[in-house]
């Protein structure tokens, strides 16, 4: 064959000119900016600030229509108390949603864990710290079931958690025999379980330890999501699982651990729940799934994964809490409150989108 020693070619002629290439790459005027433009740039750089603005606008709107009853420090702190459970469960849900999953079993895990803690401590008389630890372990166990089904059998999280929701809830009803443990008994035998219900007054506002707990949890998760490799991997996995795998991320391990962590957070949510309602009821938490997903989505996360922030979820929960509280304080019939909440959620998210658009 053509073995006529065609010597190795050099670079094509036109490529030789490259060494003379200019090193300047692009230039951009730095213009003096008006305050509005500064705001725009701030929002562009800090997208989580947008739901915060929507929250402030909602508070202002209700303050305007409902008046001081709504705006009192006490009432505002009450709203924070009212969103504690959803804030905690929403934190678990946020982690799952970032990975493009969904967890329909969070409510069932929470109530199952609260029943386990209560039964062990109150009915069986175990020391409260042990009951608490076993409850948290049970939450982790539920997470293990979800995580294993999602990663080993590669089933859609929707199906897995829909199924485990039935399973965990049935276990809860069976184990509790559908019996409520009364607040008085918990207080007498295992006050630790109610610890998060203790409240402190600060300038007329009343915060429960549960509220602080929720804020601490949110701060911790914020750190994990934004300042650790694990957090970055969660986003990568939710964004494009194939790309993440090709980039060398152990997607299954990440997914598995996120379900376990969510289970643990739900167990902590159970603790907050006992603190809030005092008693331990196997009927609790039935709206937690939808409410937590709502908070996550109102907070700006995408159910398609890869986008979402924990602060957004907290604000999302607060926005919904403000609507419900504000409407309850106004003189609107419960039926029309539902109606109004429907519209207000849509308006809040539309406002959010609009602010993002003009600030883009």
């Amino acid at each position, binding site marked *: 064959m053509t073995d006529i020693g065609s010597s190795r070619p*050099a670079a094509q002629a036109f490529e030789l000119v490259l060494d003379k290439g200019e090193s300047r790459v692009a230039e951009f005027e730095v213009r003096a900016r008006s305050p509005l433009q500064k705001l725009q740039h701030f929002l562009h750089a800090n997208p989580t600030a947008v739901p915060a603005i929507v929250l402030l606008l909602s508070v202002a709107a209700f303050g305007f229509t409902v008046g001081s009853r709504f705006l009192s420090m006490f009432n505002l702190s009450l709203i924070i108390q009212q969103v504690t459970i959803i804030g905690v469960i929403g934190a678990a849900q946020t982690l799952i949603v970032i990975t493009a999953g969904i967890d329909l079993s969070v409510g069932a895990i929470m109530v199952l864990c609260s029943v386990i803690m209560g039964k062990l401590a109150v009915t069986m008389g175990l020391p409260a710290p042990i009951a608490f630890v076993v409850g948290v372990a049970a939450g982790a166990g539920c997470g293990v079931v979800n995580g294993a089904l999602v990663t080993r059998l590669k089933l859609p999280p929707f199906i897995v958690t829909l199924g485990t929701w039935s399973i965990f809830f049935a276990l809860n009803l069976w184990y509790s025999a559908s019996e409520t443990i009364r607040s008085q008994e918990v207080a007498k035998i295992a006050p630790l379980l109610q610890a998060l219900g203790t409240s402190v007054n600060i300038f007329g506002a009343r915060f429960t330890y549960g509220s602080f707990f929720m804020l601490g949890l949110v701060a911790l998760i914020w750190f994990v999501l934004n300042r650790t*490799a694990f957090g970055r991997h969660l986003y*990568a996995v939710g*964004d494009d699982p194939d790309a993440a795998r090709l*980039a060398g991320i152990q997607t299954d391990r990440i997914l598995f651990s996120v379900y376990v962590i969510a289970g643990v957070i739900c167990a902590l949510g159970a603790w907050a729940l006992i603190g809030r309602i005092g008693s331990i009821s196997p009927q609790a938490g039935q709206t937690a799934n939808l409410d937590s997903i709502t908070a996550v989505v109102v907070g700006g996360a995408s159910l398609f994964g890869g986008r979402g922030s924990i602060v957004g979820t907290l604000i999302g929960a607060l926005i919904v809490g403000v609507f419900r509280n504000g409407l309850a304080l106004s003189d609107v019939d419960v039926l029309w409150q539902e109606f109004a909440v429907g519209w207000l959620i849509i308006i809040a998210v539309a406002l959010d989108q609009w602010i993002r658009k003009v600030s883009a």
Partner: protein
Amino acid sequence: MSAKPNVPGVTPLLQARGLNKRYGRVTALDHADFDLYPGEILAVIGDNGAGKSSLIRALSGALVPDAGEIKLAGMPVAFRSPLDAQAAGIETVYQTLALSPSLSIADNMFLGRELRRPGPLGTICRMLDRKAMQRIAREKLTELGLMTVQSINQRVETLSGGQRQGVAVARAAAFGSRVVIMDEPTAALGVKESRRVLELILDVRRRGVSVVLISHNMPHVFEIADRIHIHRLGRRLTVIDPKAYTMSDAVAFMTGARAPIEVAA
């Protein structure tokens, strides 16, 4: 004759025999063989759909072949995932780039091997050293002449096609310790950027790392490859020496216009 498909006396660094992969009725790999020697640049060329990407996906753990065996430095290996291959020092630029669109350039460069803060902040709090990662990412991209990007914290989905490819190439070149595999790394790159990538490949080889380069650009292939693996219809047709053959020969083999005299073992 086809040039040294087997270099006698030298163990191939990465070797594959009889790789097979079928998708339903499509045969992507049909008893494909592959040899990569230490310190060489091996080009893989072939028509579209010849199975080049499937081959390197099998070599890098992204695809588990139906049959066949892979040896690394003479030892049989079974990569179950790209992570296994990375752990063995094999870095890959995939044709699909494998970037996470909503993460920043710096995050993408260090995905899966983030740097942690020194001291307890890193070991206990597992806090990332974002400054260092951003600095290194910026350096690597500047080397490639890709700092037209505005900010190292720009999300990858906002980059132009070429800029994205640059990020993927920079990542692989920075981390590959034994083998760097590049699937059409200059496809979306401009003249200047392509040249920088070729220089980068030579650099990588100078570090003693072997490079597998898939490319449709014959002048580039003939300029830098030590050997050229010609892939056709899912299998290795032959391996040629770029100094002994012309580009026309290579194109003729790869398109089936002419058959090589001696088929590689």
